[in-house]
């Protein structure tokens, strides 16, 4: 089956520093892939590169992105504009900041259809109702400041959906929301995948959200993919020491209170400090001379579970 989205060998640089290196993954139609990692790991830059929305300072050195079988990484801006908001849509972390403060909700949702709101009104209203906006007949003419954060996120999802996207990129879509509202938005995204078969690339740092909604997970560390596999496999039997430590560092409702949480010593290296070896080596409990000397490739561990660790077999959850 043709993947909804395929990224191969994506490499991004700021000046002389490579900030994202050889990142690749595939996303099947109707699948949710979570791209997880801590601040600065390159997950948001990866999303921006797919959308051709990289900040000016970031250059794409290589990499191929295809959407439903069509290579889009070499599209000129003119063609990307036709794609964005239609086959390829994106929603952001701060809905109130991402929406245009001076346009009504209805006008913004209608904008991507190319039709003025007065002609698209019925479609927009039914879509607003569909994403769970109460009283859509009134909301359609309101401005973002008149809506709560959760309602604005629903409006942004509506504006992403009106073009019937093949792929929806959701960059921390619930991070700015309260937990009860987060639960509502996750439920909405789940329904979207089930009803419309939209594939979702979910960028997040929240392992709880990943466990809730992702089919597969790609863990990023310092600009590279450390590990990728099904959500069940990643959580139950991580094959990269970074993932294992990250999971052990989480306070959980099932742990003894005030118990010791796992700590990852040191800090993430800056791109200037990247050496020839594994980027996690200086913080890794399993690291040896080989790890410092040579970058481990992503190796297949069976069942599509891949890990970029020389000692993947020795990692314990």
């Amino acid at each position, binding site marked *: 089956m043709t993947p909804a989205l395929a990224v191969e060998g994506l490499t991004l640089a700021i000046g002389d520093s490579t900030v994202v290196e050889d990142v690749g993954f595939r996303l099947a139609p109707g699948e949710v892939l979570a791209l997880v990692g801590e601040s600065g790991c390159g997950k948001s830059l990866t999303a921006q590169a797919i959308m051709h929305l990289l900040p000016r300072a970031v250059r794409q050195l290589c990499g191929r992105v295809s959407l439903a079988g069509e290579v889009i990484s070499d599209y000129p801006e003119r063609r990307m504009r036709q794609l964005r908001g239609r086959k390829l849509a994106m929603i952001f972390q701060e809905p109130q900041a991402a929406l245009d403060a001076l346009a009504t909700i209805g006008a913004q949702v209608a904008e991507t259809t190319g039709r003025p709101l007065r002609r698209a009104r019925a479609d927009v209203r039914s879509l607003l109702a569909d994403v769970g906006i109460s009283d859509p007949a009134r909301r359609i003419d309101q401005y973002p400041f008149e809506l709560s954060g959760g309602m604005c996120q629903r409006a942004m999802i509506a504006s992403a959906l009106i073009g019937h996207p093949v792929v929806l990129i959701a960059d921390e879509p619930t991070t700015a929301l309260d937990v009860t*509202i*987060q639960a*509502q938005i996750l439920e909405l995204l789940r329904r979207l995948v089930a009803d419309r078969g939209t594939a979702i690339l979910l960028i997040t740092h929240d392992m*709880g959200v990943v466990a809730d909604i992702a089919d597969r997970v790609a863990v990023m560390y310092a600009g590279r993919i450390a590990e990728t596999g099904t959500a069940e496999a990643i*959580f139950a039997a991580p094959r990269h020491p970074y993932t294992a430590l990250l999971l052990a560092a989480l306070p959980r409702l099932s742990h003894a209170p005030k118990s010791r949480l796992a700590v990852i010593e040191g800090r993430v290296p800056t791109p200037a400090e990247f050496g020839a070896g594994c980027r996690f080596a200086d913080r890794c409990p399993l690291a040896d001379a080989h790890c410092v000397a040579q970058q481990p490739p992503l190796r297949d561990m069976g069942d599509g579970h891949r890990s970029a660790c020389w000692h993947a077999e020795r990692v314990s959850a």
Partner: protein
Amino acid sequence: MNEALTVADLAVHYRMRHGPPVRAVDGVSFTVAASETLGLVGESGCGKSSVSNAVVGLVHATRGSIRIAGAEVAGADRRTLFRIRAQAQMVFQDPATSLNPRMTVGSAVGEPLAVRRVARGRALRERVADLLTEVGLRPEHAARYPHQFSGGQRQRIVIARALALRPALLVCDEPVSALDVSVRAQILNLLVDLQRAHRMACLFVSHDLAVVRHVCDRVAVMYLGHLAELAPRDALFAAPRHPYTRALLASVPEPDPVVQRNRPRVPLSGEIPSPANPPSGCRFHTRCPIARELCKREVPEWRPVGDSMVACHFAA
């Protein structure tokens, strides 16, 4: 007197240019015992930060009483407040904006001691070195500036400054919310160590229930300016008695796909109403799955049920 903090019938109202005042906190009572950590949880706009700001005297209490180690904060004059604040120190969410970028770490951590003339000269430098060591930094870090540190290290500096006067009460407002997971674990471990070492009382404000469960002894749940439930940690998490507490717990995704996907989903419908115009009766009735006519009419009594205090007509 065994209570480090006693809050009685606290109200914090904010006057608006137009319309009725926002009743951010409207009659909240609780105590924090010496060496105890009380978690204060709730969603944005519930009033939890207004409570913590009122406790350290950053906002005025509209009504009620706040006693820190026996001394009254509400309505205190500046001199009294200055004295009491030595007993109640605060750690904020964002360590990047809690430190003066032009002040060395040593002068920031030593400032409370210098301002109150507790120590000076060499004695001051030694105290600062001890404090930095205590929070996991090195004495030589005193000469550096905040920008030379990571987010986690900066939060350690802020904690060292808060500990400088050996306060009776530490107020932490979302102290780990701005930090990455691996760094968050370090700071949580540090806070648990400090609780054990100092027998210090702590009011821990957070929206993150997993974090609150990890560090707190008792937990208070706030909704729209009122307390919904206050209970010992294990009782609250094992057997929540207020329907809002139950909904809140059910909304936190557990980082385990097998567990998470088999949990019954009880998403709470609707959103938090405006605190400028709160619902009548029980403030939760507009979203409550078990609300009846009575809940719209009558404010539920704050009453003991088992080990817990609950404000719900139907809690049992």
